[in-house]
């Protein structure tokens, strides 16, 4: 449009070189990892992900995997919680663990000169967490306080209710962070059992980025992960889809603005239609200021500060969901505008120029997601976790560039179907 008229328009420069050159590592003890050697900054970032997460929480004990993640650095081996934390802090080693629906993972950042100490502490945290009673109670108190703190937060309430409605009766419908009742019921035995079940050497994907050579890294990985036993076996998570399309749900909260969550079917990352669905999502509500929803909801009508959509890719479910927040009086209008844009995409699709611009953005910006060692490590471990292959980083931009209008139509049919959405609003919405 206007852009084509400016004298500054240029052919987008697609980064031809792959944004990160990873190499496979196989250690003496049989641990596999992806490695990017980058000697400029004297630090190393390590990321790892174990298969199986909050969806494996025992019945009535939702929040167990997240509590496990928070307890791994609360004392391990001969070190109590305080001693363990002191060893980390004394060398500015940053170690953290987190749990999502399908995985429990972690991140380790260290200065090169403290790599040995960092690896030793990681090995202890993974294989020999203590689960001391005082640490369990302290973490339980923190988790419950956090749940209380968020109890009437409209964004958190809307999201929780959305998942509960979309995946009613399914493990994905339960909150990964748990509920006060469920977290109160978690025992040390639950945590020990889940640790044995999830943290197995066969189930882990690892990526390392930074100023460390392959040989040294292999030795470190054997020390960090070699002592783990095989995982204890995961419960199968039944495949599911977003339910209750067309339903409107209100979470009553006395606030002047409603947070709105809306969603529909989606396409998983491992699915061959994922890239077309991803391009389509960018056009509808992706991260740039140019998306249709940003233009229609925010720019033209001033309905909201933030609006957008993203793809959720769980192991056994996929969905497209979106977010916005508008004053209660304008909720009806906001939801209609969003719905109209989706229906317009169903009816007409994007035009060729819009599709081309989306592809230009997605290919051009891919490298920007690889600008720190930590980000590179996390991208690699995600790609490994999804089973996309180490060459995915090199292939990815070509996959985006080759998306056709036919691909978009196919992805649109799978995503939007007849255009019905599940909508949850937390607030006192009018006109929903």
């Amino acid at each position, binding site marked *: 449009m*206007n852009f084509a008229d400016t004298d500054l328009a240029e052919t987008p420069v697609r980064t031809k070189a792959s944004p990160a050159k990873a190499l496979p590592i196989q250690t003496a003890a049989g641990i596999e990892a992806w490695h990017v050697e980058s000697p400029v900054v004297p630090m190393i970032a390590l990321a790892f992900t174990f298969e199986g997460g909050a969806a494996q929480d025992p019945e009535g004990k939702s929040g167990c995997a997240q509590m496990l993640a928070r307890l791994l650095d609360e004392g391990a081996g001969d070190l109590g919680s305080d001693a363990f934390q002191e060893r980390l802090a004394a060398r500015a080693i940053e170690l953290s663990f987190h749990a999502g629906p399908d995985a429990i993972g972690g991140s380790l950042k260290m200065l090169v000169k403290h790599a040995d100490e960092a690896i030793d502490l990681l090995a202890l945290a993974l294989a020999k967490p203590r689960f001391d009673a005082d640490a369990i109670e302290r973490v339980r108190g923190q988790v419950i306080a956090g749940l209380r703190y968020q109890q009437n937060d409209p964004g958190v309430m809307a999201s929780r209710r959305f998942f509960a409605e979309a995946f009613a009766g399914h493990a994905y419908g339960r909150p990964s962070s748990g509920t006060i009742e469920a977290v109160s019921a978690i025992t040390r035995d639950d945590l020990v059992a889940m640790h044995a079940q999830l943290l197995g050497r066969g189930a882990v994907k690892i990526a390392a980025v930074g100023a460390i050579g392959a040989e040294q890294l292999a030795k470190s990985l054997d020390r960090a992960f070699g002592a783990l036993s095989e995982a204890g076996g995961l419960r199968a998570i039944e495949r599911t889809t977003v339910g209750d399309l067309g339903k409107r749900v209100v979470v009553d909260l006395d606030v002047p603005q409603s947070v709105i969550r809306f969603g529909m079917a989606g396409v998983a990352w491992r699915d061959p239609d994922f890239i077309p669905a991803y391009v389509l999502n960018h056009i509808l509500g992706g991260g740039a200021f140019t998306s249709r929803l940003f233009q229609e909801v925010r720019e033209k009508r001033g309905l909201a500060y933030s609006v957008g959509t993203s793809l959720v890719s769980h192991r056994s479910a996929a969905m497209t969901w979106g977010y916005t927040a508008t004053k209660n009086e304008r909720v009806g209008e906001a939801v209609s505008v969003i719905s109209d844009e989706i229906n317009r995409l169903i009816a007409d699709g994007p035009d060729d120029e819009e599709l081309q611009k989306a592809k230009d953005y997605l290919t051009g910006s891919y490298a920007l997601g690889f600008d720190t060692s930590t980000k590179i490590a996390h991208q690699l471990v995600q790609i490994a976790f999804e089973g996309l292959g180490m060459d995915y980083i090199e292939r990815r931009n070509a996959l985006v560039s080759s998306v056709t209008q036919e691909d978009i139509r196919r992805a649109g049919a799978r995503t939007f179907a007849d255009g019905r959405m599940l909508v949850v609003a937390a607030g006192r919405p009018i006109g929903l």
Partner: protein
Amino acid sequence: MHLFRKATPTLFPAGGRFASAGRVEAAPFGRSEAGGPEVSSFTLDNGLDVVVVPDHRAPVVTHMIWYRNGSADDPLGRSGIAHFLEHLMFKGTEKHPVGAFSKAVSGLGGQENAFTSYDYTAYFQRVARDNLDTMMAFEADRMTGLVLEDAVVAPERDVVLEERRMRVETDPSAQLSEAMAASLFVHHPYGIPIIGWMHEIEELNRNHALDYYKRFYTPENAILVVAGDVTPDEVRRLAEATYGRVAPQGARPVRVRPREPEPKALRRLAVADPKVEQPTLQRLYLTPSCITARDGGCHDLELLAEVLGGGSTSYLYRKLVMESGLAVNAGAWYMGSAIDDTRFSVYAIPAEGVSLEKLEAEVDRVLRRAPSEALNAEAIERAKTRLVAETVYSSDSQSSLARIYGSALAIGETIEEVRRWPADIEGVTRERLATASERWLTPSRSVTGYLVKASDPDAPMAIAAE
């Protein structure tokens, strides 16, 4: 267009440890290590300052333009105008109609955004190195070429009102933070929220925005920061061909800032809301900043915040969470990067069944003993190690480096001060920490805030009944 807020760290991070609470500042969150990247700087003929931070690891650049004006420079009665103008800067110029710049950025696979703080406003793009000249041309054009029509101003004001509803009007803890800042700063505009007060945002219009724009958006008031795969010569050549053509105003606009009087009164306040299920305790102290305590007092406070409240090996966490069990979390932070006197915060989240009064009494008891109990050699060394390591970690991120230099220069620090920051931190002694603690963390300099549940939203004195 995100509002850059540094008022309070997240009280409950999504997972893991509370490790990042030690130090919250608008700028020097981990600075470049001395001997790190060879940063160079120069000034164009029209007064524009330029900083170049080399990072040749990938063929990308971060292009930022910083203006030396923020919410604390909003005219009286027009709170929020700096932030509102930041939004309106995306509305097009005579040369490039609304949306053209954003379309160009996204068409090139770039990313863009902007933020407003108390002392500065900044705009940035991240693009492939070959597109730097395009970004400079657009950004130089909107330094003086902005065109505003009521048709775009009105919906954007609604966007800002929604932003305020999202951040503050629906969140009692944000309301507490606003009330505490308003109480801490009895005279200085740091007591006014960056986004502005609701009733004043509602009245902002096109003329207010243009008046403000003409006053502050000039080459001599701006700092260009380019980090990435470029050389200083290249940047100079490109900057001269773009920004260099913007006519200067003759002098940098003057910021008029009142000084806080010496505080005398201990202040207490509460936000009581029926939505609050988890009470919290917050404390602010009025302290010098990196500019008002340029002699090193600022480094004492930065290190003190880390020793007292930086993560789970800190003094407050150990005393209140690990030992007495009265709190589930506790920490401290210091917003050192500020032109004028600033805030130092201590916070604690009570354990179940512990009243805020009891927790506050314990916080005070523990803080009184800090000079003698908290400042052992190991704790000081650990805190120094953590702060200095941040400088290495942040040099892994091109955009962090650009932000560190940009924000430092925008408040009047020098590149040399940024570079010698690790050495300055290393040089802080136990005696200096004790002096800082005794001098600044005193009742008469403080505001204490309670976030509590109210059964009746009109009864904020529920605090007394607890």
